[in-house]
């Protein structure tokens, strides 16, 4: 008879303690939840704050030029006459060139690293790609202006101009002065910059493909290309697109490296060789001495860059979703 009582008492004691612990844990969970929620809300708040402050500062420009501001081809600080078209074209063109060059290269690098690279080379190669991604952009800019631009002028621009400059339809793309700077040069330097990013992400997602899938495919007699095309890519599609978007985001917003090599001429570029500007380079160049309408116009450009980046990211998300749906059906 004694035994059960003690056990009852013991049980009662334990459950009391357990209630205390549970209460404490619930409280901890509650605070943890609230605190992390607060942190995430801060991010949202910061984003909203940036958009709103950009828009408020940009308002005088939007008020003066209206929607036309986006496609106006003009940049005259003295007469206070502004349009965003030149900078938008420069931004989009240089980023597009960068992606066209960088994505296939990055894909090749990632495939080599995950599929065919000998094990002893995998570590050093992978690390050096990660290191490349960590090089500050100003270094790329200096490299671009002092090392790349002179070589680019003599060994790429001049041959391209003499080879393709006379062709109908596309000849105009290779006209203009061959001084090593311009939209194409900026695009190529940008490609250097985003390549390690995209390659590193692609490698990481390729690696998560389950070995069993891959080995089964090889077992069926697939070639490496077939494995990559039919197994790895479909499995990692989302991650690959994510990596490409990360690179594109960097290319669109890159400032210092582009400022060094794009030529900084506020004119609509007539060819791939002509100097132009990008939104980020205009901001970097002109903020220090901007006043009044010029000042708010720079904010308007910043706002547009925000919108462009947002549209690009949204498009990528939509693309992923559609691909998922297509796979599901």
């Amino acid at each position: 008879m004694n035994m059960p009582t003690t056990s009852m008492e013991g049980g009662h004691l334990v459950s009391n303690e357990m209630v205390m612990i549970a209460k404490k844990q619930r409280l901890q969970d509650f605070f943890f939840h609230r605190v992390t929620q607060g942190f995430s809300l801060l991010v949202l708040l910061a984003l909203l704050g940036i958009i709103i402050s950009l828009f408020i500062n940009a308002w005088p420009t939007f008020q003066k030029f209206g929607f036309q501001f986006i496609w106006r081809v003009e940049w005259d600080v003295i007469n206070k006459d502004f349009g965003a078209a030149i900078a938008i074209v420069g931004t989009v063109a240089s980023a597009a060139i960068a992606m066209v060059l960088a994505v296939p290269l990055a894909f090749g690098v990632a495939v080599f690293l995950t599929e065919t690279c000998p094990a002893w080379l995998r570590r050093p190669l992978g690390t050096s790609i990660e290191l490349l991604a960590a090089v500050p952009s100003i270094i790329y800019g200096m490299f671009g202006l002092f090392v790349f631009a002179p070589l680019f002028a003599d060994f790429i621009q001049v041959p391209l101009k003499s080879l393709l400059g006379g062709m109908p339809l596309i000849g105009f793309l290779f006209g203009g002065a061959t001084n090593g700077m311009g939209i194409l040069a900026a695009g190529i330097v940008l490609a250097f910059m985003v390549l390690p990013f995209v390659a590193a992400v692609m490698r990481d997602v390729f690696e998560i493909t389950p070995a069993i899938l891959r080995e089964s495919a090889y077992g069926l007699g697939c070639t490496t290309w077939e494995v990559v095309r039919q197994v790895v890519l479909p499995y990692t599609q989302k991650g690959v697109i994510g990596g490409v978007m990360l690179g594109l985001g960097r290319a669109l917003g890159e400032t210092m490296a582009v400022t060094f090599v794009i030529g900084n001429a506020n004119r609509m570029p007539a060819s791939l060789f002509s100097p132009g500007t990008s939104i980020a380079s205009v901001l970097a160049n002109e903020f220090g001495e901007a006043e009044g309408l010029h000042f708010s116009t720079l904010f308007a450009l910043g706002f547009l860059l925000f919108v462009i980046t947002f549209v690009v990211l949204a498009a990528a998300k939509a693309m992923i979703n559609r691909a998922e749906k297509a796979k599901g059906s």
Partner: protein
Amino acid sequence: MNTKRNFVKTLAMTAIASLTMGSALAADITGAGASFPYPIYVKWAEAYKAATGNGLNYQSIGSSGGIRQIKAKTVTFGATDAPVAGDELTKDGMIQFPAIIGGTVPVLNIDGIKPGELRISGPVLADMFTGAITKWNDAKIAALNPGKKLPDLEITVVHRADGSGTTFNFTDYLSAVSKDFNDKVGKGASVKWPAATSVGGKGNEGVAANVTRIKGSIGYVEYAYVKKNNMIFMQMLNADGKYVAPDDKTFASAAAGADWFSVPGMGISMVNAKGADSWPISTASFILMYKEPTDKAASAEALKFFDWSFKNGKKMAEDLDYVPLPDKLTDQIRSRVFSQIQK
């Protein structure tokens, strides 16, 4: 309990006292603005700190930024290359005075041409920068350089990509000597360059790098960069019809002829100055301060700094290829401008 509270109280009070004492002792002067005079202000600040123990924190954020900061009263003084107009100074209750003089120099890159070999006049230079002259063997350039063989080479105009006092000084000059340039381009810290082959470089170093790299290019940089990079400069025809090379003597000559107090705020333009030895593209960099400063101690300290630098900083300025203000002028600044500031 009581003693403990007292102890905490005393501790807090000493902490506050030491904090305020600390800030009173290290009345660091803050200034912001023009990038052109940045090297000399920093040099002066170092020497001043060594001599008096008081520091100056100068941020090179651009002239417009300097004007914005002083208007927001976040700095003790603002610095600008393009002078603020007299009526605006009166409206804001500010004074303005020049602190240092320098010059802008057109530079070029043609194989076989030595520094100072080529001569140019203001209007022809303006035509090159508007794109009216596109080749180096143009008759107008040849007419100024009889006997020189100039190549059939396209002119690439290199300008500043960032807004800058150097651009203001240069376009101020070109607008003064060429009506065409004045109508098409005008003067400002950043302008719309009409030449079809223009490229922009960031900062003086960016322009210098582009000019040294691109054959047939012409650009403009501060004098210090000409010396540092051994660039090919041009001799300029000045207002007295003489050809002069850029150096501290020709800059000083341009400053000597200036009538500083002819406009309120001393904001005169030194371009195309009279005098047989005057470099036509010389400029002064200005300081802005409040007549009734909110922080009187910091303001007084800033005046002491400039007073000291005018007296002791001449050699340092010359070493950095600036031209210090002449004694007569600094005396006038002390008696007529510094005196307006409440201490």
